[in-house]
């Protein structure tokens, strides 16, 4: 792959802000999301969910439910294959996933699915749920990380032995795995530290909060051929996971992507689809399953609560010389928290030779966590970026100077392993200093803070096809659900390569049979990796166009170049044409119109596993105002600065920056899962799980920094995830600036801030 990242290229479309191609559908209500699709004769599915946080299932009797008029099928885990406990590929354990989709033997959290009903209406299906008899033997439950790790804790999985410790323990534990990351010699390096600060941080379980509840329709024919219409971050994932869980051939399942109403990582796994498929098979009718908001909160992937201990040693100049971090992340009912990512991120912005990081993945009686935007990174940044701010204050060094002094740059060895190539941390820090917000005056009870965020970004597999139409317009076919304007970015990149107007490109997100495999929309990978496939496929079209022109002109194809959507002869070819008085560029429309005579339709394809996703750095600057009587923290001003590598469609890059900031603000200030003593989630709705509304936020200023990623033809790096990383520590630092109190526990909600204010003033 070329290492030219377009730094000296003059772009026509890249960097412009065309109206998105799917925009009119979405402002007129025509766009169809997961729950918007119906089929004739369709049944409706509802799930029976566990009333206990932890219990053994002794008996399930579905006969009364089945007898209800209008009920067509009732299923339990007996109706899906039991997978071997070790059935895993990559990070996904399919036995766990199967047991999460429908509980087997035990329920592990309140809301865990136990049975499913298909009936002629949702109302009847709900009535039937009440007729299913389940006998439970309630077991003690554990929700808290410290309690779950205690030696006498109630054990969720009797077969679980902590991975990553030698020798393997012989006793079951809720600690699913321990991991370690280290370099140098921490204890020796401590000798060079003039100041050592050690702090403990605690964050709450939060939810992605995507506004569209999970939904799908499945239809299975008598021969087993299955079609699923689903809203997800990856229809190829839905296909692969459903096939694996139900032991079907992948070729038996076709998944048609519906528009997706937000995901943020929460739609990167299956919940309803395998159930709808089985119910459809049993009934011979299409089955629709739509979660309620309550179910989304109780049973789909929250992001983990965490406990993080950070110990930094720095010399007098503020250079960090050694760091020790311990991260404990909640996995939910099954192993697989993002603790590894958190551990890899926590020191990534720091140029540091001596460190030791330990991570623990711990199961508790809560729903299995799922990815949430830069999974694992925000709590880690909360800890590290708060302590670094504290060091700056202790040493009376300007915090920005101190960050710069410790910042990684090209050639630094990242704490998680590789050497960084071109990265934009220093550039974002410089943009921060230059921003008028940084030096604007503050009012009373106001404070200012900033923090750095890091995220790896992903590449992975993408496939795309570019088809030239007879009139020189083009269709771009790809397979990554468009969650925030990626169709427009794909069209921009195709238009750039083909040299045609961006509105002459029609971008399509195709089903699992129409385009090659695409990994899930996630990891901030779509504009980078799928974009790369679109660029390569477009280049293939251009190459063919040049060949067709060469054959018409009867010159050597190497004498044809592509310029502004036209084939242009050069070199000897140009001389020949000049002699014949035929030296004029051949536009794409002419080539397309003549394609039948020059070899047939022109299409380009690319399938790739994209490497070299450039890491992203962001720095957020925030002013808060703290009400000393109520503890309420108001966001007064907010600025986000981020290295995008190259912004293909700047408006949607800004949108990611603003949206990530808003989610981070919610995480910082208000959002948390609240459980009662029985392990029942007490706030499974938008009224009590309080996400930011328009009135809670100011305008969010954005500065896009562009340090091109050398591994992408245009220099693109992922932008979607990193903006959720800095808000929590930036706000914590701002609160400290305002009232002199360090908040180390989330959320920084009025009661929690007030408690700290009272404590600081010597109150009880």
């Amino acid at each position, binding site marked *: 792959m070329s290492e030219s990242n377009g730094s000296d290229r003059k772009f026509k479309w890249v960097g412009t*802000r065309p*109206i*998105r191609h*799917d*925009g*009119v559908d*979405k*402002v*007129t*209500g*025509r*766009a*169809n*999301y997961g*729950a*918007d699709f*119906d089929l004739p004769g369709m049944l409706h599915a509802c799930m029976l969910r566990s009333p206990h946080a932890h219990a053994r299932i002794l008996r399930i009797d579905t006969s009364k439910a089945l007898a209800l008029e209008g009920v067509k099928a009732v299923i339990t885990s007996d109706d899906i294959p039991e997978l071997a406990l070790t059935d895993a590929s990559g990070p996904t354990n399919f036995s766990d996933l199967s047991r999460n989709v429908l509980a087997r033997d035990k329920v592990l959290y309140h809301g865990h699915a136990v049975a499913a009903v298909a009936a002629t209406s949702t*109302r*009847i299906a709900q009535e039937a749920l009440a007729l299913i008899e389940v006998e439970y033997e309630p077991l003690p439950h554990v929700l808290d990380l410290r309690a779950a790790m205690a030696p006498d804790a109630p054990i969720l999985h009797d077969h679980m032995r902590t991975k990553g410790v030698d020798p393997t323990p012989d006793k079951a534990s809720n600690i699913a795995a321990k991991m370690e990351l280290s370099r140098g010699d921490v204890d020796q390096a401590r000798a060079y530290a003039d100041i050592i600060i050690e702090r403990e941080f605690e964050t709450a379980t939060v939810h*992605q*909060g*995507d*506004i*569209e*509840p999970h939904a799908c329709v499945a239809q299975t024919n008598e021969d087993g051929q299955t079609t699923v219409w689903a809203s997800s971050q990856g229809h190829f994932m839905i296909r692969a996971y459903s096939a694996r869980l139900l032991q079907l051939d992948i070729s038996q399942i076709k998944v048609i992507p519906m*528009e*997706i*109403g*937000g*995901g*943020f990582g929460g739609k990167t796994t299956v919940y309803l689809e395998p159930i709808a498929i089985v119910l459809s098979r049993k009934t011979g009718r299409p089955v629709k399953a739509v979660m*309620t*908001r309550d179910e989304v909160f109780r049973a789909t992937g929250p992001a983990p609560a965490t406990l993080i201990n950070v110990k930094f040693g720095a010399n007098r100049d503020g250079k960090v010389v050694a760091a020790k971090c311990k991260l404990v992340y909640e996995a939910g009912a099954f192993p697989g928290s993002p603790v590894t990512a958190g551990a890899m991120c926590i020191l990534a912005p720091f140029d540091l030779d001596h460190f030791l990081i330990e991570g623990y993945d711990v199961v508790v009686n809560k729903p299995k966590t799922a990815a949430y935007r830069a999974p694992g990174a925000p709590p880690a940044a909360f800890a590290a970026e708060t302590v670094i701010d504290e060091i700056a204050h202790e040493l009376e060094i300007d915090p920005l100077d101190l960050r710069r002094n410790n910042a990684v740059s090209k050639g630094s060895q990242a704490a998680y392993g590789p050497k960084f190539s071109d990265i934009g941390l220093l550039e974002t820090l410089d943009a921060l200093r230059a921003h008028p917000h940084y030096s604007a005056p503050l009012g009373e009870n106001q404070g200012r803070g900033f923090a750095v965020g890091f995220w790896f970004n992903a590449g992975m597999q993408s496939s795309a096809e570019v088809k030239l139409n007879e009139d020189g317009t083009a269709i771009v076919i790809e397979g990554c659900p468009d*969650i*925030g*304007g990626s169709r427009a970015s794909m069209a921009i990149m195709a238009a750039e390569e083909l040299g045609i107007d961006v509105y002459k490109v029609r971008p399509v997100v195709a089903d699992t049979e129409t385009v090659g495999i695409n990994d899930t929309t996630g990891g901030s990978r779509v504009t980078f990796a799928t974009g790369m496939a679109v660029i390569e496929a477009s280049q293939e079209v251009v190459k063919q166009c040049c060949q067709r022109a060469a054959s018409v002109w009867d010159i050597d194809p190497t004498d044809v170049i592509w310029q502004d959507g036209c084939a242009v002869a050069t070199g000897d070819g140009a001389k020949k044409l000049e002699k014949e008085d035929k030296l004029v560029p051949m536009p794409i429309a002419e080539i397309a119109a003549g394609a039948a005579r020059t070899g047939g339709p022109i299409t380009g394809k690319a399938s790739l596993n994209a490497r070299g996703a450039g890491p992203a750095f962001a720095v957020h600057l925030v002013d808060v105002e703290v009400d000393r009587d109520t503890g309420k923290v108001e966001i007064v001003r907010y600025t986000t600065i981020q290295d995008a590598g190259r912004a293909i*469609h700047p*408006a*949607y890059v*800004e*949108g*990611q920056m*603003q*949206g*990530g*900031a*808003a*989610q981070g603000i919610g995480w910082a200030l208000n959002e948390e899962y609240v459980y009662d003593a029985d392990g029942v989630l007490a706030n499974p*709705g*938008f*009224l009590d799980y309080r*996400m*930011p*509304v*328009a*009135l809670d*936020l100011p*305008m*969010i200023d954005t500065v896009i920094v562009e340090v091109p990623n050398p591994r992408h033809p245009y220099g693109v790096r992922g932008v979607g995830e990193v903006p959720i990383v800095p808000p929590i520590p930036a706000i914590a630092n701002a609160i400290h600036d305002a009232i002199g109190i360090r908040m180390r526990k989330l959320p920084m909600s009025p009661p929690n801030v007030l408690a700290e204010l009272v404590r600081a003033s010597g109150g009880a």
Partner: protein
Amino acid sequence: MARKTHVQTTINGEQTEFLCHPHQSLSEVLRDELHMTGTKEGCTTGDCGACSVLLDGRLVCGCLVLAIEAEDTEITTIEGMASGEKLHPLQQKFLEHAALQCGICTPGFLIAAKALLEHNPDPTEHEVRYWLSGNLCRCTGYDKIVAAVLDAAQSMGGDTR
């Protein structure tokens, strides 16, 4: 199950009849019976605004109105916002400002913003934020939505139809 009730109403200026159960909400009937799925549902408890519609010109959550209450009323949904080939200025400004990412909240915001501008053609940023606080958007951080509404208000110059 109880028999369905016959309801006569006007939706987006068109006389419409439907049958519904007494427990069914307006958004449910719009979506499931009338196949007008532009009105979305994010919670069905009145907390997200995705189901926003106008009922006799008043902004309501479709999920909190019983469908039988629609009898003899005039309902405006997202499907009635554009006229013929022309988008409503709010729709146009949402597109120009990139005020949507996933778009699931967009119909609700557009209906709510339409109600705002009919009520207050020249709102301040704070008034826009206040009015739109019944609508949740998890993608945008609201910045571009607020900017689009303010810009639309200006371009409409008080003509709020």
